[in-house]
């Protein structure tokens, strides 16, 4: 095992890296033809005629000589890259990172890798990201929290995309169920004056969620008062989906001086911000104000009280997205325009009966 003629001195130049070992050199070392070696290493049908002990010898030599097939040469030959592209709003936020974690988990045992780019909820950034990823030969594309607007010549899955584009499979949660659970829960607790946080226009879930809120509120006889609605749009036009950016909107609700006993926030981050703002203003959650979040990110259980929220199975949505992409790439699955995911409603501590004496 110590005959290692091509590997050079091991410690001489730590920062220099050896040129990659070629298939030809492995074949020469073994006294076999490159064709035989290649067929064994690639496990192609032709290698069946190679005896077992020769195969073992080839594998041992490849290991010993640190031979690694040139992925790019192979990709060029077989016209496959075994790579997908993932474009997300932000990596550092809990929503995107949980979806990506699900994507990664599914790809782990399936030879596929993924390249990540960030669109930061800007159309131009989304367009350039998808172009760059296409140039890199990705075989499929997953967009998170947004959707491409023009069909692309490869399978595309949009997580919370909400746009009907040919060739794009949308993975969306059932917003009607989500909103119904939340509002029914609040109605049953006796809440009538409910404040709402409406998502920023740049968040793709925003419209669909709001449409359902309007519809379900009407069905339940809950009136939507314009004075109790804040839209999470910052002056710079970008969305306010972090707790930091959500605080001013919760303060604005309080400053309007209209009575309300519950808040249905746009996401957990804005709910977490609102709880902090309410408590800082001397209000108790849930005794004075109940708060319902959306998403069920990790931090939903870090706060005290822990958030009552609509759970989107973000990890699972990521797994479904990558399974759908791989099935379409490998032509195992038919194209479907939409996959609906049922949300769960998680009752924790941030909601309680409406106070009889309103603030």
């Amino acid at each position, binding site marked *: 095992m110590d005959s290692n003629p091509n590997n050079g001195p091991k410690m001489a130049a*730590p920062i220099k890296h050896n040129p990659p070992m070629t298939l030809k050199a492995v074949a020469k070392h073994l006294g076999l033809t490159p064709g035989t070696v290649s067929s064994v290493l690639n496990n192609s049908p032709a290698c069946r005629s190679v005896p077992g002990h020769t195969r073992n010898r080839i594998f041992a030599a490849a290991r010993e000589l640190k031979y690694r097939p040139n992925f790019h040469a192979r990709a060029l030959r077989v016209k496959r890259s075994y790579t997908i592209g993932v474009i997300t709003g932000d990596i550092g936020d809990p929503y995107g990172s949980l979806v990506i*974690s699900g994507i990664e988990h599914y790809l782990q045992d399936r030879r596929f890798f993924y390249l990540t780019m960030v669109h930061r909820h800007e159309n131009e950034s989304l367009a350039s990201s998808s172009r760059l990823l296409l140039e890199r030969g990705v075989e499929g594309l997953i967009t998170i929290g947004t959707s491409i607007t023009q069909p692309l010549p490869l399978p595309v899955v949009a997580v919370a995309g909400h746009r009907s584009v040919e060739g794009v499979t949308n993975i969306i949660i059932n917003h009607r169920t989500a909103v119904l659970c939340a509002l029914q829960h609040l109605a049953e607790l006796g809440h009538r004056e409910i404040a709402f946080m409406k998502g920023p226009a740049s968040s793709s879930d925003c419209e669909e969620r709001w449409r359902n809120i309007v519809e379900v509120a009407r069905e339940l006889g809950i009136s939507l008062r314009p004075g109790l609605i804040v839209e999470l749009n910052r002056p710079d036009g970008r969305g306010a989906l972090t707790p930091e950016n959500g605080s001013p909107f919760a303060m604005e609700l309080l400053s309007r001086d209209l009575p309300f006993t519950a808040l249905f926030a746009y996401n957990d981050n804005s709910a977490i911000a609102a709880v902090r703002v309410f408590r800082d203003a001397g209000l108790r959650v849930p005794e004075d104000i109940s708060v319902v979040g959306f998403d069920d990110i990790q931090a939903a259980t870090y706060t005290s009280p822990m958030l009552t929220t609509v759970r989107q199975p973000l990890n699972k949505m990521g797994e479904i997205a990558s399974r759908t992409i791989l099935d379409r790439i490998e032509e195992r699955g038919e194209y479907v325009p939409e996959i609906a995911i049922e949300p769960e409603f998680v009752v924790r501590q941030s909601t309680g009966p409406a106070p009889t004496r309103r603030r």
Partner: protein
Amino acid sequence: MEPRTKKVARAKKPAATLKAVAEFVDLSPSTVSHVLIDSPAARSVPQKTKDRILAAARKLNYQPNFFARSLKVKRSHTIGVIAVEIGDAYSSLVIGGIERYLRQRDFFFLTVAHRHDKKLLATYENMLQQRGVEGFITVDTALNGQPPLPTVAIAGHRRINGVTNIVLDHRRAAALALNHLVELGHEKIAFMKGSAASSDSGERWNAICEIAEELGIRIRPELILQLQGADPTPNLGYPFARQLVASKEPFTALFAYNDISATGAIRAFQDARLRVPDDVSVVGFDDIQSAAYLSPPLTTVRQPLQEMGELAARTLLDRIEERVKYVHEISIAPELVVRHSTAPANHQRAMISAAGSVAVRKPSDLFRPATG
């Protein structure tokens, strides 16, 4: 344009070559190439011509062949990011910083999460190399031996040839936290010692011991909580903080291993009817997004995680492109963020009445699990 079929087969439809696009617009392939890759030479091409070329490329479904190009220039402009996890607050902030910097330099990255599986880690190292990555960034991951490519390790501590470690100045971090507690009058301080799975554990603990000695703080063995496992939720700290309370050892402050374990500890104290910070002060580590929104908001040692990601990416790219000399280590200065989880020591606190009093919840039901 040929009719499109709905099937995925179109993904494999042969794309038009550069030559075909050039013939279509009746220009030289090099002009077309300059415009399509937006090279500096394209500046002399009139906008009208550029538009014509781009329209033709779209119409003919031209896609530059990345693999052909990378074979020719022997560059992939791709790095591999090797992390323990992706979905947690620490890694996602670091990776967010990496992305931000790479984008400016037109680099891409492949990400893998090994979840502390040593075999998987080795496989990933190989696979990423096969895919032609030009370097690695590892996040909180202990490498075994010298990697085959230029590598930057975030929170890497072993000195390995070819690896640049980006490490927080743990001595400074410990000094910030302990000075703060001493100024508030704390003497009986409990400590969390990180689990062997976390690469910062050893270094941080050594720094704490050194600084404690310098400040004359006695580290009491009965107040040391040895964390175990790699739970990315506050359950990392919850059971150990409960044990501490149950042990009835008096203490007035806890220096937690990180914000996640501090979150678990605060909950454990509150479940045992101890008030934070009135009865017990808690200091965290990291300053993840949720730290400011805990009840009470957490006093913590801030690691600039996103900036560390950016710095790692810059360092790696500079090394790949041989712009800088290799260094073993780059040290990052922490900051202390004082919020509301620390207060003057309460020496009269009645430990006995609190300890072992009310078992409120099952720990397993407490925090949202990491997946699902």
